[in-house]
């Protein structure tokens, strides 16, 4: 675990502006993984995937929006022939901080995956319900193989067993943000993965 070294107070450009977006340093608890540690691990995953699929071709499926940064940084390290597709999903019912499992597809794959090696890329798996549902849905389309690459695994939260073939990091059951993962749609651009102290976090708007 790494603690943010820079503790000097910053004067945020939005401090006096009607658009009140909170400086992340105010609610950042700790940096779990700094940028260089993530980059190294992502390169390792890419090398492992390339080795496992040697002589084959894969379709990389990015689950929007959270997995975008992970996917964009992972794919240059995958050296086998590859194509890219994206899916946009949301869970039915339950709110933003929980997941019921049934998913609604907003954007389906443009690619027919029948007979293809599919690598599903996800930012985070917790209950496993969403991922389980997507995998079952994709299996009905008879891909040649279907593998899962997840950056972060909150194992403590698991409710259904789910297949994870490639994993970046195990993380504790804490609210995380950065490296593509948002809090209320913001803070995805941060190059590290950090935990948020939600008591100190204020919703924008």
């Amino acid at each position, binding site marked *: 675990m790494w603690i943010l070294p820079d503790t000097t107070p910053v004067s945020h450009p939005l401090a006096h502006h009607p*658009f009140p977006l909170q400086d992340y340093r105010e609610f950042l608890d700790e940096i779990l993984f700094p940028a260089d540690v993530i980059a190294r691990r992502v390169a390792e995953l890419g090398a492992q995937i390339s080795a496992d699929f040697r002589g084959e071709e894969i379709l990389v499926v990015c689950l929007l929006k959270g997995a975008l940064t992970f*996917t*964009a940084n992972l794919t240059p390290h995958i050296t086998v022939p590859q194509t890219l597709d994206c899916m946009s999903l949301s869970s039915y019912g339950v709110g933003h901080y929980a997941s019921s499992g049934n998913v609604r597809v907003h954007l389906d794959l443009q690619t027919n995956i029948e007979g293809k090696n599919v690598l599903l890329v996800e930012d985070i798996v917790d209950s496993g319900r969403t991922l389980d549902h997507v995998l079952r849905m994709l299996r009905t389309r008879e891909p040649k193989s279907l593998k899962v690459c997840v950056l972060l695994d909150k194992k403590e939260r698991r409710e259904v067993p789910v297949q994870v073939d490639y994993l970046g990091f195990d993380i504790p059951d804490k609210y995380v943000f950065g490296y593509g993962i948002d809090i209320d749609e913001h803070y995805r651009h941060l190059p590290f993965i950090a935990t948020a102290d939600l008591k100190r976090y204020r919703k924008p708007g």
Partner: protein
Amino acid sequence: MKCLVDMQPYSEFMAEILVDASTLQRRVAELGDQISRDYAGQDLLLLCILRGGVVFLVDLMRHITIPHAVDFMAVTSYGVGARTSSGHVRLILDLQTDIQGRNVLLVEDIVDSGNTLAYVLDLLQTRHPRSLKVCALLDKKERRQVNVPIDYCGFVIPDKFVFGYGLDLDEYYRNLPFVAVVDPARYHPR
């Protein structure tokens, strides 16, 4: 193991590297700095049209130091052929975000005829954003058919068939860290 993929190595059909990885990264960082300054103290929503712009978007986001949100659209053209054919596009994924009153910056990998972009901009204007600007990594100016404003441009490029850094060649090679030119005589689509 038997090699199941008969994939032509890109070195066989690559005419030249148009923009190398370090030049790309430097320019993306400059664009990020400029956008961060221009929108300092304001709301910013980056809007990316799938799938070509995603690599550029992810690198650009890292260099935009001010808070910002991101959303996606996926479009397809009516009829057959390239998505630039008539410019009329069908939305297959609309924004999750209501852009009314927001500062929207459209992030595109490449602009050539401008038809698709013009159509998307018209569509977005009907939703009354506070501002609507365009950031394009590559601008093939020679190919322009309609006048579209490019507020932030990475590189003006000649009218050549390019691939890499998010731009595909028959869906492949998006993952290359540079932008290169295809020599069509040496390229054999699979």
